[in-house]
């Protein structure tokens, strides 16, 4: 019997079996008959506008010209892609596209990688028959802070408009005028301020859309390419890192359908330039009195070795590692547990969730599961702000018909496309969950929607002020839904890799619980005795430092003064500590308090593997030489151990990689070489088929207190915050929005607060008020980690006061 998923078509006289329903243009390309195109793009709904892909198809009334991009293949279809008629039509369209196109290829960023240029070269006539005046426009026009538009070059293919409208949901870039005057435009004073604007530059088939930071920087033939992974968040979008003369000049998305489908957020795309910033720490520095002095690596490591050697293991603690590779994280854990003898290691800084839930929840979803979900349940951070590419995937699923339920104390980016939006007062999440799970009253419809599987639940803390235990309860509830899978939401870089490598007080490498006798026995067999005490988490480490139980702190690419829920505690701890070492790429509010700063090589400079929120392990590759004297963390720690008289066995990547694959059960077999040469180029989700995952964590419903002061705080992040990557990227650093306290109008009027008025939050921070009736009553929404809110304690209970007279 014939395979119903295949049809037989004839292209240029040759029969081919191709997938049923595929667009003819794709089917033809896959069998080697490339048809020209400008408007067609695999990830966009075809529009058939440019007409470059016209082919002849035989029908009941003879052959006719049809656009192959909107024609699905059907059995018995007979197609001519290169007949005289088809070729003339294709060339005719090419000529039409060229008549008004400027001949500025030598100064055009797209020159050398331009489909129009390539096709003109391949198929176009030698000289133009067009002697009329070409269209001219003022050029270039900034359509946003990041993207410029040259309308003369535009071929009006509709790709950017479809990206803005269909994909990103930001219909700010539109067609304007009609006929020969049609052009792409934004509305005055309403720029294309989308988090996804850079995708339009990448998809533009000509040089009409260019990015501000790449303009005139390089020519395509001078670029070197490295396939890597973005570490801006935990999605780990696959990227093509492009370098010229030793510097990264551009990052493009790569179509990895399991992860990002080619899309990137603008932070993924543009934040690379921080690695070349003048503000990088590039040499070791040792504090002398109140200032840092440059030192040699040998001096710095000698000092650290001698100081650390003076403490008991349990007096030393390490915080961080979430920005490092898996290999670096693994070596950090090994260094702490074996060389120092301390179990006080945490890669989360009080802003996370139960590490067991994050690393080992079952059943765990992969991103791809969203495509086939009937219902998507999002109760966690605003995905548009925290994990923008995952936000796009949810949008896609909704476009394809999935039901979306969003629960959050504040409005989120997904609300406009959600089937149900449930708002609750910050601090009362456990009440809201109880109502939701019982389906009482106005929750009946929502509860019913959640009863249709398969369900994919995206759960996390809606803000740092929210009790992390609530996420545990959400996961437990989500697990009870039909065919449910859970994707735990954490945002920071390689945090999932760090947890998998054991950078948590309760985890050992390979998703082993520290309480699992069997697991720790196996590790002790390899590493020797492990610390006999339980580890502390970051907030506990900081408190113990203030209390004097912890004397020395190792800060690894982390800035607790900026990022932990109680900045004052972090600051006091750093001041109280006897000895602080920071391994970092920048001087931060935390590393500025260190006794020694070691310059760290970062993304773009380091080699290794990373793990995303699905548990997908992918290879990251260096694109440029490490800046200055910066080094990878593993080589620093290997050297430091040597200075302390211990051989860590971590001097090169393959050695570490092999050890991870050997002793971290979940990562069995997953070496750098495996990912490079044998595994799926899209990376692999661990554990592989034959490997084991010792910890299969089942979330539990635990009592979470309800906070009921006059006001409760929703302290949520935004994509452009005051983090080091945004702060040190020229084109992004001015994008953080002005900070407001957003509150419900009824709360404001009760307290006689007016829009725009300055109020005092938590007795310490003065901020202007914005009224927003989509914020839950009793809740104040304040942006996390921006300049204006630095130092604010992330606790649900908060006060809001009007300014005293005269203040």
């Amino acid at each position, binding site marked *: 019997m014939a395979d119903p998923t295949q049809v037989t078509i004839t292209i240029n006289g040759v029969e081919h079996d191709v997938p049923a329903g595929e667009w003819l243009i794709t089917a033809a390309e896959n069998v080697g008959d490339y048809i020209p195109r400008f408007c067609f793009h695999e990830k966009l709904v075809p529009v058939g506008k440019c007409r470059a892909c016209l082919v002849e198809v035989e029908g009941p009334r003879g052959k006719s010209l049809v656009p192959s991009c909107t024609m699905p293949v059907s059995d018995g279809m007979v197609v001519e892609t290169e007949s005289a008629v088809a070729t003339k039509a294709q060339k005719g369209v090419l000529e039409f596209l060229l008549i008004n196109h400027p001949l500025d290829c030598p100064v055009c960023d797209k020159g050398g990688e331009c489909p129009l240029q390539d096709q003109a070269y391949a198929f176009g006539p030698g000289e133009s028959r067009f002697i009329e005046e070409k269209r001219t426009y003022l050029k270039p026009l900034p359509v946003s802070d990041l993207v410029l538009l040259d309308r003369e070059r535009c071929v009006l293919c509709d790709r950017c408009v479809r990206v803005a409208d269909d994909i990103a949901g930001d219909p700010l870039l*539109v*067609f304007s005028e009609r006929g020969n005057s049609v052009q792409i435009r934004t509305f005055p004073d*309403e720029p294309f301020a989308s988090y996804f604007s850079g995708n339009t530059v990448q998809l533009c088939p000509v040089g009409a859309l260019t990015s501000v930071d790449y303009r005139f920087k390089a020519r395509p033939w001078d670029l070197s390419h490295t396939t890597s992974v973005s570490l801006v968040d935990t999605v780990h979008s696959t990227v093509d890192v492009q370098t010229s003369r030793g510097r990264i000049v551009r990052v493009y998305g790569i179509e990895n359908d399991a992860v990002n489908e080619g899309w990137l957020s603008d932070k993924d795309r543009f934040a690379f330039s921080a690695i070349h910033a003048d503000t990088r720490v590039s040499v070791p520095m040792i504090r002398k009195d109140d200032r840092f002095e440059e030192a040699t690596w040998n001096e710095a490591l000698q000092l650290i070795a001698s100081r650390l050697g003076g403490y008991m293991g349990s007096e030393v603690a390490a915080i961080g590692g979430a920005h490092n590779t898996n290999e670096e994280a693994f070596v950090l854990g090994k260094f702490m547990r074996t060389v120092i003898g301390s179990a006080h290691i945490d890669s989360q800084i009080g802003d996370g969730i139960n590490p067991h839930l994050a690393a080992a929840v079952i059943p765990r979803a992969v991103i791809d599961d969203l495509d086939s979900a009937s219902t998507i349940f999002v109760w966690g951070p605003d995905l548009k702000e925290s994990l923008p590419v995952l936000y796009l995937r949810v949008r896609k699923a909704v476009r394809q018909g999935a039901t979306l339920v969003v629960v959050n104390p504040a409005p989120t980016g997904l609300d406009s496309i959600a089937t149900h939006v449930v708002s609750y007062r910050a601090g009362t999440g456990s009440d809201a969950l109880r109502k939701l799970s019982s389906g009482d009253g106005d929750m009946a419809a929502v509860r019913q929607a959640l009863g249709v599987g398969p369900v994919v639940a995206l759960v996390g803390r809606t803000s740092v002020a929210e009790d992390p235990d609530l996420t545990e309860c959400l996961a437990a509830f989500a697990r009870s839904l039909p065919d449910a899978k859970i994707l735990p939401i954490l945002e920071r870089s390689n945090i999932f890799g760090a947890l998998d490598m054991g950078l948590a007080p309760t985890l050992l490498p390979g998703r082993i619980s520290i309480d699992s006798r069997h697991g720790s026995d196996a590790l002790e067999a390899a590493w020797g005795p492990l610390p006999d005490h339980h580890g502390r988490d970051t907030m506990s480490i900081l408190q113990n430092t203030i209390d004097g139980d912890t004397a020395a702190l190792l800060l690894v690419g982390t800035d607790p003064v900026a990022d932990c829920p109680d900045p004052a505690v972090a600051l006091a701890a750093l001041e109280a500590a006897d000895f602080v070492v920071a391994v970092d790429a920048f001087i931060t509010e935390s590393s500025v308090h260190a006794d020694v700063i070691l310059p760290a090589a970062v993304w773009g400079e380091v080699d290794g593997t990373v793990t995303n929120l699905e548990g997908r392990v992918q290879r990251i590759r260096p694109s440029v030489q490490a800046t200055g004297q910066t080094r990878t963390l593993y080589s620093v720690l290997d050297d430091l151990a040597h200075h302390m008289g211990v051989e860590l066995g971590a001097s090169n990547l393959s050695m570490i990689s092999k050890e991870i694959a050997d002793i971290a059960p979940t990562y069995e077999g997953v070496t750098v070489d495996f990912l490079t040469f044998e595994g799926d180029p899209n990376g692999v989700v661990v554990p592989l088929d034959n490997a084991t995952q010792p910890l299969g964590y089942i979330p539990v419903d635990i009592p979470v207190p309800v906070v009921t002061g006059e006001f409760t705080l929703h302290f949520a992040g935004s994509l452009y915050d005051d983090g080091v990557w945004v702060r040190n990227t020229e084109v992004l650093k001015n994008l953080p929005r002005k900070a407001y306290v957003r509150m419900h109008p009824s709360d404001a009027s009760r307290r006689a607060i007016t829009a725009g008025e300055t109020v005092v939050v938590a007795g310490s921070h003065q901020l202007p008020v914005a009224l927003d*009736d989509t914020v839950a009553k009793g809740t104040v929404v304040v942006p996390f980690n921006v300049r204006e809110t630095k130092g604010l304690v992330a606790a649900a209970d908060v006060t809001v006061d009007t300014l005293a007279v005269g203040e």
Partner: protein
Amino acid sequence: MSSPIKKWSHSNQERAQRLLESYPDRRSAMMPLLYIASLEHDHVSQDAMREVAALIGLTAAQVESVASFYTMFKREEVGDYLVSVCTSISCFLRGADDVLDAVEQACDARHGSTSPDGRFTVEHVECIGACGGAPAVQVNYELIEGLTGAKAQQLIEWLKDTRPQVVLADEMQQLFGGQRSFDWGGPEPDGAVAPVPAFAPYGSTAEGR
């Protein structure tokens, strides 16, 4: 959020609300709302487009995208009288270019521009469905058929002299028109108060501006 159209006349606010509710999809009210907004702002200004966007729940860019597609949503200020001279084939064959010349001279405005005194905007337009009465002209979309250059000049002078608040096709046709496409039938009481088609659901002579 306060209403984006609180400055509109009460009747136009009501019309807008009715229009939004009268279609199966709010977006269908786009073009009617653009007409009303242009009555409120004298043309489809940026504010007008922002207001329509807010009413429907779209971005202003989406509204501009639609408004700019059509010739009757004037995004630049227009004079009190929009004089549209048809120069398509049937009118062309019967002397439309002479009519256009006469209108431009009498109004002191080239086509596509507004007279220095702000009273007239002149445009040449494509076929307005008056081919049997060619050449034809519309003043604020009210039609006069069977014009000549001389009659067109008189029409403009008459508009200058009488400054009618309401432009009535029947009256202008009787004074200046000639051959009609067909017998127009009985009298038509309504006319235009602005360069916006006079149509009660979107704004009519009865209520003024």
